[in-house]
């Protein structure tokens, strides 16, 4: 039977007390990192998602301002918005708010009034889907109306749940 605590085929088996102390050092360290990393990852991903939506919204509205809008660009932006919107509802797990100690514009109201927040997030899914459908139709008046609806949903949520700028 090979020595239990030998790490390799090396000559000297590693001494038990050293291994224990190494383990004692690593376990809490990795545990701490895991706890701290989770909210940061969530917060970064959600920030990225919101920025994506902001960009898409700008690209779409810029086209609406242009004399001759490019419907392909409008459709691509509407698709991005419709794809990003469903993430918002689940992007705010407990611990990813201001209490994380990280810089965030998320207000505690998100967690204090969870039902309202969930409803607002659901509304975003509905209005971005409608915008996607309008964009696919190529009907400019319909797109403008739907873009306004989606925009108001963004604003409605920002007004209640985001730190004012």
């Amino acid at each position, binding site marked *: 039977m090979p020595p239990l605590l030998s790490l390799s085929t090396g000559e000297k088996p590693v001494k038990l007390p050293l291994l224990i102390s190494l383990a004692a050092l690593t376990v809490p360290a990795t545990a701490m990192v895991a706890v701290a990393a989770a909210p940061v990852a969530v917060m970064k991903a959600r920030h990225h998602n919101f920025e994506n939506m*902001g*960009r898409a*919204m*700008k*690209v779409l*509205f*810029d086209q*609406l*301002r*242009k*004399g*001759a809008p490019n419907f392909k660009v409008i459709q691509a932006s509407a698709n991005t918005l419709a794809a990003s919107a469903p993430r918002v509802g689940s992007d705010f797990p407990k611990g990813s708010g201001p209490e994380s100690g990280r810089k965030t514009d998320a207000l505690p109201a998100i967690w204090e009034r969870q039902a309202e927040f969930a409803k607002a997030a659901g509304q975003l899914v509905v209005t971005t889907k409608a915008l996607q459908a309008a964009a696919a139709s190529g009907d400019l008046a319909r797109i*403008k*109306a739907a*873009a*306004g609806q989606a*925009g*108001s949903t*963004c*604003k409605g949520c*920002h007004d209640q749940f985001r730190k*004012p*700028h």
Partner: protein
Amino acid sequence: MRAVSSARAPGTKLWDLPVRLVHWSFVALLPLLWWSAEEGRLDLHRTLGLVMLALVAFRLLWGLVGSETARFAVFLRGPRAVAAYVRGLRGCTHAPVVGHNPLGGWSVLALLGLLAVQVTLGLFAQDTDAVQSGPLNYRVSWDTAKALSAAHEVGFNLILGFTALHLAAIVWYRVVRRDDLVRPMLTGKRAFPAGVAVPKLAPLWRAGVCAALAGALAWWLSLGGPLPGEAPAAQDVPSAAEYM
């Protein structure tokens, strides 16, 4: 002030009406622009910014074709003239200059240049969500607009700094040199020793032409700066106020 004004010699007219109007409009507009941006009244900020742009454009044109004391070619002097003026300031040979002195001329250019850069940046700037934005914002990408918005904020701090310097200089002339620079900017006139050359003032109709050109520029930019053959930017896009 007091009763002295009536007893005072009429003095020489050195600042024409357009220069004074533009100057005091800057004084009124800067705090309003600051306030409207801080309060998030960005619709108002955009309108005031376009007024500022027209004023700056007017002043730049007036610096080319306006009255003698308003012209860049007259008041922007070489390094030797500036150095000589500064030496004179330190000594006791300070004599009032009809118009901008060699140092003040560059200060005018710095302030006007900063304002020109600032209103240009503002044309492309946007808020956090690009909901509220300058009239040319739709022509640039999100990232470009973000960078220009950040520069727009830096620009304001620079303007604040130079304004503080401008005010400090006025106080210094008043206290140390007993030279009142504010009153002539209000009345356009001040007393000079006999025999100074009287600056040539440009006719007001010329100011009218410059104002019309500057106004047209601001109006064209407010429409998104449509190029020939291009339709102006649509104004029926869902209003920014109801979006985000």
